[in-house]
């Protein structure tokens, strides 16, 4: 109970300070738009093939835009040495971590939900044909991204090359998760339900989430307290 309250306190703080300035949110959203635009130049999106690659495209955009949010997550604490103040408080490191994951998760989901219709318009895709399944995929894959991203955000927060190290380390780690999400999203956007082979991908997403959440919670003490 106390643990949950602490998680909520930390998450609320992160969300509040993010929503007050909307800095990372705006940056990440406009970055997402810019990437959508860049992609549409790179791969002439009028052709039939858009449909085939729509899932991949979408998750690439989410991954790139999400990295900005994740990067900011612990970087936000550096400014006035706030991280020290947090760690020195009686809140256990896992609560701190899960609070931050929760905040990032909500922000990520927000961005994704804003991007989806924009994507639909730009690439002429009717994305809302399987809303519940799509939501499930979003929910599962975003949790994976949030957990892995937040761990690495904590891991790299004191490095000189933070902005560089984070994407370099996070993306390869996320590939199984992104891959599964991509494989699931493409047929969902085309209106097909999840069945047969696709269920294996769903299981993989769930497995990814569980494994990395467990690993992260176990390791976070070591990461935060030197």
């Amino acid at each position, binding site marked *: 109970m106390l643990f949950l309250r602490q998680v909520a306190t930390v998450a609320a703080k992160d969300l509040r300070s993010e929503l007050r300035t909307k800095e990372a949110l705006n940056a990440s959203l406009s970055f997402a738009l810019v990437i959508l635009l860049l992609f549409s130049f790179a791969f002439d999106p009028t052709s039939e093939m858009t449909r085939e690659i729509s899932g991949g495209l979408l998750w690439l955009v989410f991954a790139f835009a999400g990295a900005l949010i994740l990067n900011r997550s612990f970087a936000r604490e550096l400014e006035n040495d706030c991280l020290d103040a947090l760690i020195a408080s009686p809140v256990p490191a896992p609560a701190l971590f899960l609070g931050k994951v929760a905040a990032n998760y909500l922000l990520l989901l927000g961005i994704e939900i804003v991007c989806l219709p924009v994507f639909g318009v730009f690439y002429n895709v009717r994305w809302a044909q399987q809303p519940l399944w799509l939501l499930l995929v979003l929910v599962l894959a975003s949790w994976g991204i949030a957990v892995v991203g937040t761990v690495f955000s904590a*891991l790299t927060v004191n490095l000189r090359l933070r902005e560089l190290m984070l994407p*370099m*380390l996070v993306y390869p*780690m996320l*590939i199984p998760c992104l891959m599964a999400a991509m494989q699931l999203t493409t047929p969902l956007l085309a209106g097909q339900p999840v069945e047969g082979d696709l269920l294996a991908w769903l299981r993989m997403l769930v497995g990814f989430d569980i494994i990395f959440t467990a*690993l992260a919670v176990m390791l976070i003490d070591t990461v935060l307290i*030197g």
Partner: protein
Amino acid sequence: MREKILYGLGALAAVLLTHNIWKMLTGLPDEAFQGAIFRIIFFHVPAAFTCFACYFTSLVASILYLKSKQLKYDSLSVSTIEVGLAFGAANLISGMIWARIIWGIWWTWDWRLTSSLICWLLYAGYLVLRRAVEEPTERARLSAVMSILSFSVVPFVFFSIKWFRTQHPQPVLYGEGKMDSAYRSMLYFNWLPLLMVAVMLVAVRMMQERRQREIDALRRTVHAF
């Protein structure tokens, strides 16, 4: 003394390797479908096994480091990963050569190939991460975490051919795989020298790491005035 043992190990490995290559070229018949190039399997697969063994050792070393905070485990971890990367590269490159000859292309985005590459990149990222941290204790701590997290991809590489439909051949050594016993024993027998080379390299790297630490500490003391 220690160095002598290491050199001895290296020499033995070299002898074994020449012997194996000789036998491969003269003793074993060409494989029915793939012809002469099939012999590359005697390096391709043991390289992969050695690479996995290295990563696994690094995982263990990292856990031990986090438990004991002794920097020798950190040295072990980084040494095994460096050697593992070398063998991983050997596996990748031999696979690519093989693919070029059998499939006609250097690379295809098949799950086994891709996951091997991801794995390689992750551990390369480990080395990049290490270079970005100055302070040895912090470096050891962060890279131990990285090593533990990275290992989660290794089973993925291993089982990818089971979980997904791949262009890469299905397992022949385990599961319901079949392989001619002469090939099989040759494969295992060639793994031995490669493993010996790996052990030697790890030991050498560990010695270097230790000396580096000593030098660093001395230099820090000099620079502390």
